């Protein structure tokens, strides 16, 4: 038994073992000990489990959420879903704004059956790189064209002319713009 009171094993040492401590601290010490001594999975095992992310729910659920999101946006009178729409001459350049998010897009013909829609999504403080973007037929929520935003918010989609809604999957929300006719 050590004589010096500063020695950790001295009975009078303030940090003495939990044998003299109230029960909750002794219980806590035993929990900490159990956690410290447990075997842990290897990095390879963790990586294998993380790779299961490929089985996570995919786009259809994301688009289901878009429906609820646009309904919520439209019901919010303080922040209408669409602040302004600009149609340039020829109806090929459109701009939308929903809250802090702005979208500009242009439509160009590729051939007699297809057109290319390219645009840019911008929003202060919104992390958009890698966000999903899709053209969906109104009320069907079946995507006809999907893509991803690059680090500048640009995207490019190819679709047949028709009426679509543009769905953008932003963090914590989905912006669904009202239908626009792609000439």
């Amino acid at each position, binding site marked *: 038994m050590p004589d010096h009171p500063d020695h950790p094993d001295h009975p009078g040492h303030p940090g003495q073992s939990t044998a003299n401590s109230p029960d909750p601290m002794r219980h806590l010490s035993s929990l900490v000990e159990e956690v410290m001594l447990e075997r842990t999975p290897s990095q390879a095992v963790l990586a294998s489990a993380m790779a299961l*992310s490929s089985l996570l729910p995919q786009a259809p659920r994301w688009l289901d959420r878009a429906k609820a999101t646009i309904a919520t946006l439209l019901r919010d009178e303080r922040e209408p879903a669409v602040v302004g729409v600009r149609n340039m001459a020829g109806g090929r350049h459109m701009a939308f704004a929903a809250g802090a998010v702005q979208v500009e897009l242009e439509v160009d013909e590729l051939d007699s059956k297809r057109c290319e829609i390219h645009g840019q999504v911008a929003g202060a403080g919104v992390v958009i790189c890698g966000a999903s973007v899709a053209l969906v037929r109104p009320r069907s929520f079946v995507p006809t064209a999907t893509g991803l935003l690059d680090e500048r918010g640009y995207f490019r989609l190819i679709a047949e002319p028709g009426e679509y809604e543009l769905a953008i999957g932003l963090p914590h929300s989905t912006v669904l713009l009202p239908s626009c006719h792609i000439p």
Partner: protein
Amino acid sequence: MPESIDTRDLLEACQRGEADAWDRFVRKYSRLVYSVANRYRFCDADADDVHQAVFLVAVKHLEQLRQADRVVAWLVTTAHREAWRVGRKLNRELDLTGDFADVDEPRADALAHQEELQAVREELANLSPKCQEVLRQLFLSGDRPDYGRLSSQLGMAIGSIGPTRMRCLEKLAALLRARGITGSSTRSEE
């Protein structure tokens, strides 16, 4: 780096298909799942199989994980079930007189213990790096730690190791109390 992610937000992000949320989910509960397999003294390879099987079930049944406060119970029960399956393949008779009276029904006190352990795992990560190191070195040193060696390893005076340990445990206790875990023993002593 400690992670403090609301479980409900994490589950919703997983259910939205966010891969980084799934990674955080795996890191958060990996040791919990592994600890259940280890209770049956599986070798590493078999414990690894149980671990993968549990997360495979989890990713396929994310919709069932709606209640954030039931995640630990769900994972523990699923881990036991998968351990049981692996044990049967190995023709091993698993001892069910311990934590689980029935393969689908963990004992309430065993489940409470697992929930306490999970809370300790999560809150240990929220302690300062110094506290984490002090507790790690002390608890890994066994019943009679070499305080001289610990003093030089931790860069602390011998006399301050004990009080620092106590302060760190008190901080941990405070973090657990904030989660509603009082630290009273909920398991009968064996």
